[in-house]
């Protein structure tokens, strides 16, 4: 079985994050593999391990689209256990919105499936930077595949997948034929960490770099030129500052209510 996992290189949320330049795009200098993609990678690894792993001809391809630094997300995925890595990188991709991103990723997925189409495309539930969750659904639409998003569990039986999806008012069991695009939540598993063996093994794995020309996409279809939305203005929101802090000396509950009353919140 062949699984493509989308991995994104995103700014580390532990630090201040910034928008930069004319297009107000995200500054990616201090970036890491999006934590939410680790769940997708783990799900992929578990699926192939249950089917005899690489020895039985299964593979997990980690695919990342992004600037030079995004190769680090691919490298980390290889250390965690992906079989091979693909980095889609082209200057024209900078500033792509979800529509342009899904167009480029769909073309890359078709390219990677030229010999044998992928059985499954796995993604995280959202990127931790844009947080729109638009890309998995748009990818499914562009590839004409069923989409199963926010999967909290995932099982494959032959060519059929079954997933659980938890909503506010109900929890659904969902079925779809393969191939399909599936995004997984952080409830699905506990991602493994790269260990020493994995880090050493990753050094021998191949990372293929693809350009737009390789996947047959024109520069005008992606980047800010190919995007269907534009960020016009961006303002830093003044950071929240601490207000009044009191230590409870037996009447803090009453003081709390006085504060709420003064704020007209009661």
């Amino acid at each position, binding site marked *: 079985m062949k699984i493509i996992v989308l991995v994104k290189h995103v700014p580390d*949320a532990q630090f201040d994050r910034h*928008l930069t330049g004319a297009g*107000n795009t*995200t500054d990616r200098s201090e970036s890491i593999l999006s934590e939410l993609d680790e769940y997708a990678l783990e799900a992929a690894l578990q699926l192939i391990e249950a089917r005899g792993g690489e020895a039985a001809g299964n593979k997990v391809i980690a695919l990342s689209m992004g600037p030079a630094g995004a190769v680090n997300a691919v490298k980390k995925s290889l250390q965690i256990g992906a079989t091979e890595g693909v980095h889609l990188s082209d200057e024209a991709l900078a500033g792509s919105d*979800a*529509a342009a991103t899904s167009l480029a990723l769909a073309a890359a997925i078709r390219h990677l499936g030229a010999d044998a189409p992928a059985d499954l495309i796995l993604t995280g539930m959202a990127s*931790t930077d844009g*947080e*729109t*969750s*638009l*890309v998995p*659904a*748009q990818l*499914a639409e562009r590839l004409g595949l*069923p*989409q*199963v*998003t926010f999967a909290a569990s995932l099982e494959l039986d032959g060519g059929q997948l*079954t997933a659980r*999806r938890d*909503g*506010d*008012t109900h*929890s*659904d*069991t*969902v*079925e*779809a034929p393969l191939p399909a695009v599936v995004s997984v939540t*952080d409830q699905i598993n506990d991602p493994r960490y790269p260990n020493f063996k994995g880090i050493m093994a990753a050094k021998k794995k191949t990372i293929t770099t693809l350009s737009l020309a390789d996947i047959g996409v024109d520069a005008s279809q992606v980047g800010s030129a190919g*995007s*269907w*939305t*534009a960020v*016009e*203005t*961006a*303002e*830093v*929101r003044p*950071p*929240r*500052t*601490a*207000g009044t*802090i*009191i*230590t*409870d000396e037996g009447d*803090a*509950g009453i*003081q*709390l*209510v006085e*504060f*709420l009353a003064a*704020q007209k*919140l*009661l």
Partner: protein
Amino acid sequence: MAKVLVFIDNPGQALKKSSLELLTIARSLGESVVAVNGELHDDVARTLGEYGARTLYLPSADDLDDYLVGPKASYLAAAVHASAATVVLAENSAEGKEIAARLGIKLGAGVITDVVAVDPDGTAHKSVLAGSYTTTAKATTPVSVLTVKPNSVTPEPAAPAAAPDSVTVGLPADATAAAARVTARNEKPASGRPELTEARIVVAGGRGVDGNFGPLEDLADALGAAIGASRAATDAGWIGHDAQIGQTGKTVSPQLYISAGISGAIQQKAGMQTAKVIVAVNKDAESPVFEIADFGVVGDLFQVLPQATAEIKKRQG
């Protein structure tokens, strides 16, 4: 005048406040029409008219809920063609965003999510990077699709109200072809409290509640608030995962957020720091939550919350 199509999925017996908000925004942008999926009760149809809807579109099929997202996007695309709408407004729920996503590709339309306000020219306002920036964005395409967060505007009926016409929209033959099918549905028991993302007040608990949400529930009931939780509390199984607030849970921006026994990790802050007022109760004075609290109490939540609840009840008389 621009036509604005509002999508309302399964309105049930009465329209939700967030739907009324979408209708109110739609009128500020142009002439509004509504695409409904699911049963349409007379009361709902009347309210839609009161909120300015001129035409109601209904799908020719009644099994769209048996599939995930795809067929609803096909239906909406057909409704957009039938109405010649140039703006589509939908709910900002997980499913609402995904329907918007697929609709965007079908229509070649830019999609903007998490919108909190829309200017008459279609410019959308939102906040990004966990509330650290406020941005304006615009679709560069002839049609735009926006998903709007609850509590963005005050709902206002239109004057004069008119009874809308209904039109059935035929679904494309392949609408359900490559779609995932819902094979079982487990309804969750209703809590009787306001819906988390729509609530004006949220009381949230973390690991510090140590399995006992009782004092938070009492306070929430006194305030008419919804209950939220940190991931530590949902992972521990003390409360359902749908109560989780944060990066991988829900984003809320209520008038008031009361955080109790939550340290304030970055992933938790990501879901609540656009609340108007933040109150925190935590035993540990060093907790990062105090860096963003408007009013903080260093103390034991099991002492502070019951006292506050009693005081509120006393004042309410």
